[in-house]
């Protein structure tokens, strides 16, 4: 499909980070009707790391990300084949319950999307519908603290989440995801709608969060991938071209295509 990859196919061995893995994708293919968006992707995401998915627009990185907590179920015509293992269970086996999977694998979207209600309810709604038995006030505070938002909103928990600035809204969305105490948090270009200082805050936040969670982040911003991620996966036209430790992918890429992309020659 891509010239240059085919030639080197023989010497291309999938990168194997050391276990345990939070997410393990095996030969994942995703198609929208007749259009194939993700081709034979195999990817192992170690626990408590940040993995960045990079690549030009339309390369399938967001599609792959959404398939990890079955958000693709809501896209008409999307078909996933292959296996995605989470805690050893294939989340695409017929018996798997997508509601349980989404509760364990949280998601932060490109555009901040707080619920049109108070900051407190933004945090508590998810735990409430999933039967959280602990102390809700404590949950609100720890979630907001972990999302580095507490100091800014402590006095106004009952005000609308939509009254916050864009960067604060996005951190509220992160707090909302954290409140569910998930294993994995998926982030789909979480900073693309934000200004540089909000972006910086979120990047610092990610570095703190990886002690507790595994984070997979799709980003268009290669500097961001470099700053925050431990491993980087480069995708092109639906294929996983290169996957490895971030430093190696950016400094000594094994594929010509990766080198061209990370050096800004296309994309």
């Amino acid at each position, binding site marked *: 499909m891509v010239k240059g990859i085919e030639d080197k196919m023989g010497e291309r061995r999938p990168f194997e980070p050391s276990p345990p893995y939070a997410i393990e994708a095996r030969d994942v293919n995703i198609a929208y009707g007749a259009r194939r968006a993700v081709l034979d992707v195999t990817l192992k995401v170690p626990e408590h790391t940040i993995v960045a998915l990079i690549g030009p627009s339309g390369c399938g990185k967001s599609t792959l990300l959404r398939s990890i*907590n079955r*958000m693709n179920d*809501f896209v*008409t015509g999307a078909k996933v084949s292959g296996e995605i293992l989470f805690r050893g269970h294939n989340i695409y086996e017929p018996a798997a319950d997508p*509601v*349980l999977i*989404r*509760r*364990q694998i*949280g*998601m932060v*979207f490109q*555009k901040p*999307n*707080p*619920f*049109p*209600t*108070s900051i407190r309810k933004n945090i508590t*709604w*998810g735990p409430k*519908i*999933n039967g959280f038995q602990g102390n809700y006030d404590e949950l609100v505070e720890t979630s907001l603290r972990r999302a580095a938002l507490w100091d800014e909103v402590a006095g106004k928990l009952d*005000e*609308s*989440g*939509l*009254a916050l600035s864009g960067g604060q809204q996005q951190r509220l*969305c992160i707090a*909302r*995801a954290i409140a*569910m105490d998930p294993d994995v948090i998926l982030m789909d270009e979480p900073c693309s709608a934000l200004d540089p200082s909000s972006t910086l805050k979120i990047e610092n936040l990610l570095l703190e969060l990886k002690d507790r969670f595994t984070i997979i982040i799709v980003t268009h911003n290669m500097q961001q991938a470099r700053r925050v991620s431990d491993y980087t996966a480069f995708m092109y036209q639906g294929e996983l071209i290169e996957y490895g430790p971030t430093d190696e992918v950016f400094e000594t890429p094994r594929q010509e295509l990766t080198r061209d992309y990370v050096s800004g020659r296309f994309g």
Partner: protein
Amino acid sequence: MMTDYELTQGSASIGSPPINGVATQSRQVPLESRQWRPRRTRRKYVGYMFLLLTLAATLLGVAALYVLLESVISQGWARLSWDFISNFPSRIASRAGIKAALFGSIYLTGLVAVIAIPVGVGAAVYLEEFAADTKWRRVIDINIANLAGVPSIVYGMLGLMLFVRICAFGHSLLAGACTMSLLILPVIIVTAREALKTVPNGVRLAALGLGATKWQTIRAHVLPTALPGILTGVILSLSRAVGETAPLLMIGALSYMAFVPESPMDDFTVLPIQIFNWSSRPQDEFRVAAAAGILVLLAILLTVNSCAIFMRMRFQRKMQW
């Protein structure tokens, strides 16, 4: 660089030497070059014409409404009294009242609301939130949109057939309410769907991403967000049901009733039928009663519509957008 160039150009051509190197006056240059023919006067004239046309359209509607109100109020205002509302209709025009019709209208609207709101909103939620985009759904879409345009007398015939005869409800309040519900269902469905479409998809994804089921998402976030729009459609269709006459005549609602219906299976009449009946009598006094009846009907419609506006504002505030 650019600024230097402009400064020297300007000051050189104006002829006044710059003081301390700063231009004192800037040169006037034509605002438009010769290659352009903007015809601004003509464009502004056309724009003004359209303003007048839209204003005329507005005034025409208001004027027609004013003429109607003026004639009805001048005829009927004096006839309005507590007796008029609390008396049953009578052969003697001066004693005739609207009690039966008023209660009939209120009960009918209440029953219609109970039947049409859950069914209509339910159908809208199914079509908008659950149904996959298949050929079948598109067939249903088109049919619902067309049903909204079917003449009300046709619904009357359907009601006569289905509810009066087949379901054997007779000429009852229930048969009337079912018929009227059928009539306004398409409008409720279409407006409720439009309201659901305006809910940002991010809200749905956020809820689903937290491990909510589809129904939890709809119940807690989608419906509340769409509620103001849904309410508007519901209330507007209900006020249409209050004013509609033809289908009820078709299913055989009475035009003379000297009692208030006590159960859904009782016979009934409604205000528009009472008004229609009076206005077709030869005696002038009955025409006056008809005018007074119209005033009561208008008052009910106004109340219902203000309720809609009030509820919409309340819910919108609650949403904290």
